[in-house]
């Protein structure tokens, strides 16, 4: 029986582990946190339908219950080496693993909004990220300014840490636009009187039901979209924010006071992924994510033999795409192991 180590018990990792164990392989799923779900565990409601994130987590827990694979929680891979063509993985708890194949499902990192200094995150009081907002929504917190006032005008800022040479990320993070539309709708439900703006460059509504949600946001939820990337934010005396952008569709500079600013932060290669690349000596893309062997036909293969890739460690993806990708990874691993025996 072949052994596969899957690194990361997020959406992709659990799916890959579940499929591979269904194919009859012994699977060990290694997870650094005490909980499964990775980033999914932080989310409240998911785009495009606004269904609760907990439903996906529940389905993952079902898979784990019904599956026959082991999960090692609170466990990190601390050492990676090669011996006689096999990968040797050591965990922080001193366990040594010698799998026949590895699946990296370490997920993505979130852009640290402090790096975009001109937006004042961590300096001005009423600047939060989409992740901060999601946390507040999950906890059922009232959305207020730090001085307790109800925000009358809210601005969502697109492309924070993406499509931005200065932030170090040239790539588009794909899912921030739809996240902004979703959260704008959610805020409208909580703050019926507020003015809600989205400052965007392009609206990347590429996925199933995305464009329809954008239209709904305009027609039923009174979200205003302004085509202009935020240039800078400053803090007023009353802690509201003075923001500057250009309304590029009318070709005029625009200044506005807003009470709350939400930064739609992008995805980048996480620290865990970067460390795994160092350990396995994997090639990375210019964007920093793990480079697949072939972008069209070998998306789950890394540059190293026996090391496979699933989910957002290779590029920004939705939850649905991550699950698809993880299933594909499972098939590739399964075929790889089959062929190993035939050789």
């Amino acid at each position, binding site marked *: 029986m072949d052994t596969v180590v899957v690194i990361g018990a997020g959406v992709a990792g659990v799916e890959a582990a579940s499929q591979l164990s269904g194919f009859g392989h012994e699977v060990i799923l290694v997870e650094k946190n005490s909980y499964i779900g990775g980033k999914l565990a932080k989310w409240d409601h998911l785009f495009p339908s606004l269904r609760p994130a907990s439903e996906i987590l529940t389905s993952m827990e079902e898979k784990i219950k019904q599956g026959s694979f082991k999960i090692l929680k609170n466990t990190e891979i601390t050492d990676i080496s090669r011996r006689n063509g096999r990968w040797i993985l050591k965990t922080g708890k001193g366990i040594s693993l010698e799998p026949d194949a590895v699946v990296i499902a370490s997920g993505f990192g979130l852009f640290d909004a*402090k790096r975009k*200094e*001109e937006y*004042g*995150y*961590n*300096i*001005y*009081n009423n600047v939060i990220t989409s992740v901060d907002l999601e946390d507040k929504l999950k906890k059922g917190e009232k959305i207020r300014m730090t001085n307790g006032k109800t925000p009358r005008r809210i601005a969502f800022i697109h492309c924070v840490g993406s499509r931005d040479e200065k932030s170090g990320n040239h790539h588009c993070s794909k899912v921030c636009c739809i996240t902004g539309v979703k959260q704008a709708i959610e805020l409208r439900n909580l703050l019926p009187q507020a003015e809600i703006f989205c400052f965007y460059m392009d609206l990347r509504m590429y996925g199933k039901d995305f464009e329809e949600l954008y239209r709904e946001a305009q027609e039923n939820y009174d979200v205003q979209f302004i085509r202009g990337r935020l240039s*800078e934010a*400053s*803090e*007023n*005396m009353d802690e509201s924010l*003075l923001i500057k952008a250009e309304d590029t569709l009318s070709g005029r500079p625009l200044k506005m006071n807003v009470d709350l600013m939400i930064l739609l932060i992008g995805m980048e290669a996480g620290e865990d992924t970067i460390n795994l690349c160092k350990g396995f000596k994997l090639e990375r893309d210019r964007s920093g994510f793990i480079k697949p062997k072939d972008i069209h036909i070998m998306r789950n293969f890394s540059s190293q033999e026996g090391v496979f890739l699933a989910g957002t460690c290779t590029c920004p993806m939705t939850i649905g795409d991550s699950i698809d990708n993880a299933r594909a990874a499972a098939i590739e691993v399964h075929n790889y192991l089959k062929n190993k025996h035939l050789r």
Partner: protein
Amino acid sequence: MKREGKQQVWKDYQKEIADNDYYFQRSCIRQNFFPGSEYAFLKILREELGKNIYDDARQTTCTGIGYHSDIIPFETIQTVVARHFALMTEKGFRNFVISCVTSFGIYSEIFETWKEFPEELEKTRYYLKKATGREFELPENMTHASDIIYKFREEIFAKRKHSLVNAATGEPLKIVEHIGCHYAKIFPRKGVGGAEFPQVLSGMIESWGGEVVDYPERRHCCGFGFRHYLVMADRGYSVANSRKKFESMEPYKPDAIICNCPGCTMFMDKWQYVIAETDKKTYGANGNGIPVLTYEELAGLILGYDPWDLGLQMHQVDSEPLLDKMGISYDPDLKYTGSNGEKMGAPMQPQFIH
């Protein structure tokens, strides 16, 4: 506003500032309008800090003002800059200290162009040799004069006779810091603290006991505009920009404005006069303007230098309100006198501002 957030940014944007042995590049505007400041800079470095700084008589303008008003070809300014590097090399220095912020910007720009386009450097070497026979090395360290004062701000404060504190109430004075655009906007890594939350002047103000005023239009250009000011027709652009800043800082009731760029200091001073005379509006208390000082003038006041030795009499907006707040004594009768105390008349008082 969270100061710790700014401190994080400051940590990320620290730059190498040489310790000693400087070659000094003077500023046209400062020599004209703030001669006391350049003198104070050299005095502070030599006499208070014991540093070695060379003041070269053979320097010319860097032509930066001409370059940014587009009458000087890029090749010409590169060669003028190269000549100054040649003079620096000849005197055995490798640390270049620049007095003007426009200069600092253009020197930095040229430096980076030479890195990215080495053929420009070769062309410049050729031109300089052909025109003057000179050759040059690149400086190892290139900073602005305000970086040096920033670096030694604690040493300066240790010798203080005054601090940025209201002598009567003990409260820190509220100071607006204005950074010249070409200091850090072109290359954020070349400015202490970067472009968004520069620390070069905040550091001085806080070390010297004052409180920094942050206001929404802090990063806005003062409006020099180069050709917009040099030619009379479009000076309105220049005033409008400064006015925008004054309107934005007014509610915070600052006690003074400090700038690290010669043009900015001049404009923040003179445009208050123009706005007062045209709109009858002043931004300080009691019909006063907000005093505008260079960082050397401020350092000099901290060290106990006489305000008229520093050249404060050359400002249009009176600095006396600030001097009074700091508890600095001065002789008003000596304000408009010459080297030997001889009277030199006095400027007419404007109608709507002191």
